[in-house]
């Protein structure tokens, strides 16, 4: 993994994510504006409050009706100018609640799915490093169905990291695991934070998880965002 100085440099250089978005589906509206810097930003809120919708908007999986989203100097959404950069061009990693590993591929091929799409010069990590970091080396030749819940989530984390994301989005990555497994995975998340310097947004309804990892916490309630960094 990277030396501490280069991690510190990466954290210093991490671009800001700034957004002001409005998305409506049926009677539900998410309206959120914030400027998020380096480190881990926790987003908390009760079930159905719009946390996952907000993350999907940031990832580019949903198209907002109004607003803008910038990452550093890149404008990824600007509805006034009809600009929308889709998920596959954003270079953000996303870890889903239940991993969403490809069932037809081995763990190794899952891990390398995004990595293979990168220009060799832009790959920040190798399979061996990530397998070591997340302790998944013995699982590489297995199929996702042969993994436990905790193993699946570690592979999902590894898959997102190997894609060398500019921003790592975590959508309740531990919510489907029991407490024992949560306690196993949380240290891995902390290691990712400390050893990679990739800015992260960690969405969860469990305040204890967010407190353990996050440098700042935003709250979503009924589609509205508030807290340090929220600009509306």
């Amino acid at each position, binding site marked *: 993994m990277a030396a501490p100085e280069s991690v510190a440099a990466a954290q210093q250089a991490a671009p800001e994510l700034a957004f002001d978005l409005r998305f409506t589906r049926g009677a539900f509206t998410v309206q959120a504006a914030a400027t998020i810097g380096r480190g881990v930003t926790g987003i908390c809120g009760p079930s159905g409050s719009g946390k996952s919708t907000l993350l999907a908007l940031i*990832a*580019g*999986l949903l198209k907002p009706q109004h607003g803008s989203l910038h990452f550093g100097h890149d404008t990824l959404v600007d509805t006034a100018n009809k600009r929308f950069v*889709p*998920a*596959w*061009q*954003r*270079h*953000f*990693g*996303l870890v*889903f609640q239940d991993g*969403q590993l*490809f*069932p*037809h591929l081995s763990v190794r091929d899952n891990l390398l*799915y*995004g990595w293979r*799409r*990168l220009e060799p010069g832009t790959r920040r990590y190798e399979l061996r490093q990530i397998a070591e970091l997340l302790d998944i080396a013995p699982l590489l030749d297995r*199929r*996702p*169905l*042969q993994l436990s819940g905790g193993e699946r989530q570690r592979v999902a984390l590894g*898959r*997102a990291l190997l*894609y060398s994301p500019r921003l790592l989005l975590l959508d309740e990555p531990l919510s489907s695991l029991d407490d024992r497994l949560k306690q196993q995975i949380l240290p891995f998340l902390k290691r990712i934070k400390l050893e990679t310097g990739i800015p992260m947004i960690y969405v969860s309804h469990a305040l204890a998880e967010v407190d353990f990892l996050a440098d700042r916490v935003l709250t979503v309630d009924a589609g509205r965002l508030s807290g340090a960094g929220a600009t509306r």
Partner: protein
Amino acid sequence: MNLTPEEWQALALSTRVAFFATLICLPSGIALAWWLARRDFPGKLLVDALVQLPMVLPPVVPGYLLLLLLGTQGPVGHWLEATFGIVLAFTWKGAVLASAVMAFPLMVQPVKLAFRMIDQRLEQAASTLGARPWRVFATVTLPLAAPGIIAGTLLTFSRSLGEFGATMAFVGNIPGETRTLPLAIYSYTHVPGGEAAAMRLTGLSIALAFVALIASHLITRRTERLLGQFDSRGRDGRA
């Protein structure tokens, strides 16, 4: 089995017609199935019903409509002949088209169901890993829909082998040109002393249908296992 040259001819023609009919249905069926499974548009119900229509109509009706439309005096048939020199009515190519029309719902239905069963978050996961839409389709959607596509392909092939009514109405019963296996059986039952030949071809048809259905079952199961939808420990992979 000792078949006469005419019987071999019917078998070879049936196989050729079924092969090309399946070849037509495969890409068009996958495209339409995806469209019906994943997109909402006005008139979707109507398109869906139109696709299924040949399944519930008497087979001779689509055949007759094909003749009206694509016969040499029909508007499209006349244009095809005048512009490209293509004649479909009363030719083996017409038999391919009639078979494809009748078997098309059997391709679309299982493939549509397979597309609907795929968790779309898997496709989203692929797109957040830098895969553009066509690559997501090729590397995630299509492999996960493979059991449905294989089942649809084998059903289409089997249905085309047995196609009778539409073929008879559109391309007739011309030995060596449009007399497929079912038409040959029909013809033998109408000539004195043809019972033995009809019996042989009936046996052959049953054997072919059995082989196709068993192959469909085995290939689908094997593909599901390869895709990780089954494993040796049970349906959902739990011990």
